[in-house]
């Protein structure tokens, strides 16, 4: 089975993401407000009545396949994450040091967060269990938002506006940049020299990206990105990485046997004469791959070319789409 189609692994990844946002982003802010005496437990409990209006639960189709249900969970998780980001922008990011690496237990198990076990013996059960768990946490987040309104820290209207406006960046940003670089050598040269500065001129803020580097694939070298220590990724430009990017199975295999891993996990065969180079990131420098322009794409404009660039090709685990294939889609 191709890794990216492994449903159970996908489900685990949704659970891990949810746990990350709960333990490292949502709860530290709630704890801080409680410990500073700015809100009380009673405030939270009495807000429950107004909490559900922020994230109305989507209807669940009884005919949905397991794949569709996991995809729906992922969308719901997206709402959870956006809600936390909105709450954070009202509260501020000055949280207690649960966000520190030591305190989070990255280096010392004594500090490590405990995670709730999501039960279920079958995939079907686990999807349902995780869904219930996520809804509980959505309720907590809704309570927090309601408290913020009741305290007068943000107006209801403003909060609604922020929740709706907060559309996350997507990989299509990268696709567009690659297409432009294929067409415009001067732009490409600037991009290779100083990606962050060049993209800031185009309106990407990149405030939390210390440095950005674009790696150009050629006939002689093919780049693949990974972050083995955590999950560094050009989030501000491309949005969230695919779920498998954060999985140990990918991280461990890609640095050990890159060429073989590309074939086994992603069905990508890099020609023998092309070097496969893995680029392991740290949080200081974020990388994006500029794949080679597909054959048969002469004469296409920027928008058409951008449609040939896939998320996987920006990481280096997939190919761009051949124009003939794109037409048939």
């Amino acid at each position, binding site marked *: 089975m191709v890794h990216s189609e492994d449903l159970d692994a996908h489900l685990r990844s949704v659970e891990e993401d949810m746990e990350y946002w709960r333990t490292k982003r949502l709860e530290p802010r709630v704890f801080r407000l409680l410990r500073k005496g700015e809100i009380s437990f009673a405030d939270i409990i009495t807000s429950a009545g107004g909490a559900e209006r922020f994230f109305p639960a989507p209807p669940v189709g009884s005919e949905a396949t397991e794949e569709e249900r996991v995809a729906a969970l992922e969308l719901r998780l997206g709402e959870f994450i956006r809600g936390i980001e909105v709450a954070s922008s009202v509260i501020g990011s000055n949280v207690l040091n649960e*966000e520190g690496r030591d305190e989070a237990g990255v*280096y010392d198990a004594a500090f490590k967060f405990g995670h709730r076990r999501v039960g279920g013996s079958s995939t079907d059960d686990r999807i349902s269990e995780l869904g219930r768990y996520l809804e509980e946490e959505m309720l907590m987040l809704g309570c927090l938002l309601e408290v913020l309104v009741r305290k007068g820290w943000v107006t209801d209207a403003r909060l609604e506006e922020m929740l709706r406006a907060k559309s996350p960046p997507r990989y299509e940003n990268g696709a567009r940049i690659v297409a432009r670089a294929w067409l415009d050598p001067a732009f490409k040269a600037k991009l290779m020299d100083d990606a962050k500065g060049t993209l800031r001129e185009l309106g990407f803020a990149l405030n*939390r990206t*210390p*440095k950005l*580097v674009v790696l150009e694939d050629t006939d002689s070298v093919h780049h693949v990105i990974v972050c*083995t*220590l955590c999950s560094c990724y050009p989030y501000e430009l491309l949005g969230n990485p695919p779920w498998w990017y954060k999985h140990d199975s990918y991280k461990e295999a890609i*640095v*050990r*046997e*890159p*060429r*073989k891993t590309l074939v086994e996990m992603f069905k990508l065969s890099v020609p023998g004469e092309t*070097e*496969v*180079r*893995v*680029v*392991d*990131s*740290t*949080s*200081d*420098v974020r990388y994006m791959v500029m794949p080679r322009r597909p054959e048969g794409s002469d004469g296409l404009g920027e928008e058409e070319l951008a449609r040939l660039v896939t998320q996987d090709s920006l990481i280096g685990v997939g190919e761009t789409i051949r124009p003939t294939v794109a037409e048939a889609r």
Partner: protein
Amino acid sequence: MSKEFTPGQRVRIKREGSGGTTNRRVPEYARGVTGTIVRSHGMVTGNRHDHAEEWGPLYSVLLDPSPGSSGERVSLDVHAPWLEETDAGASEAS
């Protein structure tokens, strides 16, 4: 001031961090490994979320393939304090 390196220079990634602790800034597979500097990123500042203190200039190091591996190479970003010069040549697989 931490030491500066130049592209093309041979380096070894330290096993230990300051004060004899394990070097947790580099992944385990790279500790003690030799390689070649391929890119200099300069001082990277303004990454308060990850590290408040400055760690000196940052470099991409193209690691020598481990013996018996399939020969593909990994480029890893390492700050100067965790690098040392070495005379060891590149291994044959490169």
